[in-house]
């Protein structure tokens, strides 16, 4: 008969995994493509007996031994019809960084905005993506978050595919003082024909963005205990 490991022994091992207790997720999240790709490449290399540096993420070009994909816990601020200036949507983005508390160096924090599937048939008007640090009480207070310091402004030919933004400095700042993490403010504009007002194409684009927009934050950290610098390696 098989015995269960004692809670004490299990706790010791979970500590080694940087977990306080065994997680009990309600449902499995889909594995993000980038993580699946890295995992599969490592498994294939291990099966082939290829020696690997597990402290370097070749696919991202950064050092790190722990990769987290944090889901967005924010909400839409405006889901009405696009305004006359083509403003499609405003979304408050929030990422819970409380899990990132282990000793380690942040080597990457990349925000991915997935604007929807790529398709030849869905080529809409050009869209402008404005990303700012959120100001105001946000989720914790009564008033709605407002855009603060602008982080990026990017125009793309159509609402399709993923956009990446380097947020390493912002996340480092948030990690230094958790109270600073008030989230991000995202605004997307669809650039239609302004003379004829909000046209059908813009409305269609905005509808599609509202349905398909996904945001996630990929955070890579390097634990020096598990990944000594090359000079310290034997």
């Amino acid at each position, binding site marked *: 008969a098989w015995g269960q490991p004692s809670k004490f022994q299990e706790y010791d091992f979970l500590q080694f995994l940087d977990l306080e207790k065994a*997680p009990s997720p309600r449902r499995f999240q889909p594995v993000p493509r980038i993580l*699946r790709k890295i995992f599969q490449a490592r498994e294939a290399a291990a099966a082939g007996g290829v020696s690997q540096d597990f402290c370097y993420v070749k696919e991202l070009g950064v050092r790190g031994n722990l990769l987290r994909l944090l*889901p967005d816990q924010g909400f839409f601020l405006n889901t009405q019809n696009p305004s006359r200036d083509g403003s499609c949507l405003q979304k408050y983005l929030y990422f819970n960084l409380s899990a990132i508390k282990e000793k380690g160096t942040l080597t990457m924090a990349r925000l991915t905005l997935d604007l929807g599937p790529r398709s030849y048939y869905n080529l809409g008007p050009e869209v402008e993506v404005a990303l700012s640090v959120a100001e105001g009480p946000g989720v914790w207070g009564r008033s709605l978050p407002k855009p603060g310091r602008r982080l990026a402004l990017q125009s793309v030919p159509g609402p399709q595919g993923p956009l990446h933004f380097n947020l390493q400095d912002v996340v480092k700042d948030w990690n230094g003082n958790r109270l600073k993490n008030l989230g991000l403010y995202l605004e997307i504009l669809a650039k239609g024909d302004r003379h004829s007002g909000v046209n059908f194409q813009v409305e269609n684009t905005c509808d599609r963005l509202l349905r398909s927009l996904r945001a996630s934050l990929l955070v890579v950290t390097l634990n020096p205990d598990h990944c000594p610098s090359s000079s310290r390696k034997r």
Partner: protein
Amino acid sequence: RAAIPVPKGSCRNPCHRHQLFINFRDLGWHKWIIAPKGFMANYCHGDCPFSMTTYLNSSNYAFMQALMHAVDPKVPKAVCIPTKLSPISMLYQDNDETVILRHYEDMVVDECGC
């Protein structure tokens, strides 16, 4: 050294690597580990008698300990341990619905020795 054949009959149970598959389902960890479902961790088991220390991927220390054990049985025998380990990657999910990919050193026994 691995190419040197171990003399037959000198030890019934020489130190070597045995297969051990760790199935996360057996531990109840399949509820939060997405992949792999398990992994071949292996383990080391067997004897390290003095007569064999030259053949069993032994350290100089194991040789000396086995020699001392032969002279004085109060000194414990040399032990069979992993001499080469390799890491694995694990994909799991925490309670915040965050998907995590992490690399763990020293999870798989590749070679054993005394």
